[in-house]
């Protein structure tokens, strides 16, 4: 390992490319995020904590974290099933199905939000089925969860899919010749190999869900203490010119984002040591 910053290369343009990259990164991402952290440190930890512990804020944070966790949890088996079917089986319409998975990435969140509301409102296609049974989905935390399932499903599928595709079939054959049944092979041989991808997908899905705004606010009904999510609270506080309150909620959410990012990096370096790949 040489002591110099960059390894010598005949290829020109390093300074220009890196200089522009760092400048643009600083202007668009780092300085604005630093402004938030600066504001937060101006407030101080005690003030942030007391703002976050206000009943309405606490309720919103709780709702966001719990529904995001449950949505990511639901998407693990759902995403595994979809990835399995797409990778292992050949059937008519497979490619179309594969393309559909990215729909939540491609569909603008506001569009998804009003569409889900139309479906699950008490007079909607699906909502009326549940309304007949006395169950309300839209304008309750269940609606929030449903919207988060929609937006975060692709994360699990798309992280598991390539790993499953690369999995060596010979280990499964070895497992079968050693007398393991199919279910045992899946549980003891395939799932452990998919674990890093599942964890990464879960973290990505959770991080996305916690910050999600557009697809949730229409179906949530936004009743304070009941179905009001943390990102909406930031918007409400901003509209009330409560910059300190908005900063406090945003700081907590940013801290969660960083924690998720750290977890993903740890999972990936663990997986590289354990399996020799990401």
């Amino acid at each position, binding site marked *: 390992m040489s002591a110099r910053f*960059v*390894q010598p*290369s*005949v*290829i020109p*343009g390093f300074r220009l*490319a*890196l200089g*522009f*990259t760092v400048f*643009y*990164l600083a202007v*668009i*991402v*780092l300085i*604005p*995020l630093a*402004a*938030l952290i600066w504001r937060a440190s101006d407030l101080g930890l005690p003030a942030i904590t007391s703002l976050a512990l206000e009943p309405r804020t606490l309720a919103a944070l709780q709702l966001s974290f719990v529904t995001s966790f449950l949505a990511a949890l639901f998407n693990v088996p759902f995403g595994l*099933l979809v990835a399995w*079917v*797409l990778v292992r*089986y050949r*059937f008519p319409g497979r490619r179309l*199905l594969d*393309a*559909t998975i990215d*729909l939540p*990435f*491609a*569909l*603008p*969140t*506001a569009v998804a939000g*009003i*569409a*889900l509301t*139309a479906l699950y409102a008490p007079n909607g*296609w*699906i909502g009326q089925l549940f309304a007949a049974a006395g169950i309300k989905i839209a304008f309750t935390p269940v609606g929030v969860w449903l919207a988060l*399932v*929609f937006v975060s*499903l692709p994360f699990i599928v798309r992280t598991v899919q*390539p790993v499953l595709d690369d999995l060596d*079939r010979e280990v499964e*054959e070895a497992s079968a*010749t050693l007398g393991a049944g199919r279910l045992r092979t899946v549980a003891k041989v395939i799932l452990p190999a998919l674990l890093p991808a599942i964890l990464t997908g879960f973290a990505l899905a959770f991080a996305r869900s916690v*910050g999600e*705004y557009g697809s949730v606010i229409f179906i949530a009904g936004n009743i304070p203490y009941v179905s009001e999510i943390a990102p909406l609270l*930031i*918007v409400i506080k*901003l509209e009330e010119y409560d910059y300190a309150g*908005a*900063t406090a909620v*945003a700081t907590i*959410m*940013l801290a969660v*984002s960083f924690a998720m*990012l750290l977890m993903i*990096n740890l999972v990936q370096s663990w997986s590289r040591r354990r399996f020799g790949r990401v």
Partner: protein
Amino acid sequence: MSDVATLITREAVIAETSGETVGARRRQPRRPTEESPTIRWTLIGVAVALLVVFLLLPLVAVFAEALRRGLDPVIDALTDPDGLAAIKLTLLVAAISVPANLVFGVAAAWAVAKYEFKGKAFLITLIDLPFSVSPVVAGLVYVLLYSTSHGWFGPVLNGLGLQVIFAVPGIVLATIFVTFPFVARELIPLMEEQGTTDEEAALSLGAGGFRTFWMVTLPNVKWALLYGVLLCNARAMGEFGAVSVVSGHIRGLTNTMPLHVEILYNEYEFVAAFAVASVLALLALVTLGLKSLLEWRYGDELAAGRRH
């Protein structure tokens, strides 16, 4: 095909040709690494059913709600002056933010993929950072910087008579933030895979730096570049949360299409809201179509994770 499987298939063929199976056609023996057809078709059925309910039905609902009263209200909603202004603003914002992130993506990929330097992994993490930040937080940080009343640069902007927040520049900045990594993250892994040998050959043959980039590097990554631009553009046109925070929702001035959808919806103009939404949904469908086309047709020329 693996040896065990070949053996089994061969046995099956021998069994069949030796006339062991009289009458009904003999079923191919199941490989030990496969599920029975019943299980297989059940899994496929469950996956398809769940995807139809969770993903496809919302999409169908957009078009169904828009066309509830025929085509005329849809056309009215889209040709309404506020609707037209929203479409124009959305196109303008995408036309600025996509090229900006394209230039950045190429520069970042060039620096990261063609050289070895310290802190590279950290730089890649920073580039991906905007994906893990909530769009609302992304909007908020620009308000904290540029708001004329509360922002860091507020006094400076006031002095210059410039407005960023509740105006088009803020919308552009917020859009650039949320679409920041799209092009870079498609190019970096691909250019790392490709290495530097092609460029070194071109340089040793006397081509200049720019010519090498233009004639050698760019053709090597053109489909990945297009792929990144496609995703970047879809998100730029559809972004809601970040833009909503900085826009101020001024009709005809700072209203993008997704914001226009929200306003119409909140005013109970459901058909009009779904009409504008259906245009955005069509954009999403076109994006998905082109994206899949790139994956099937040019899969080898995309980064490893994108090959299906």
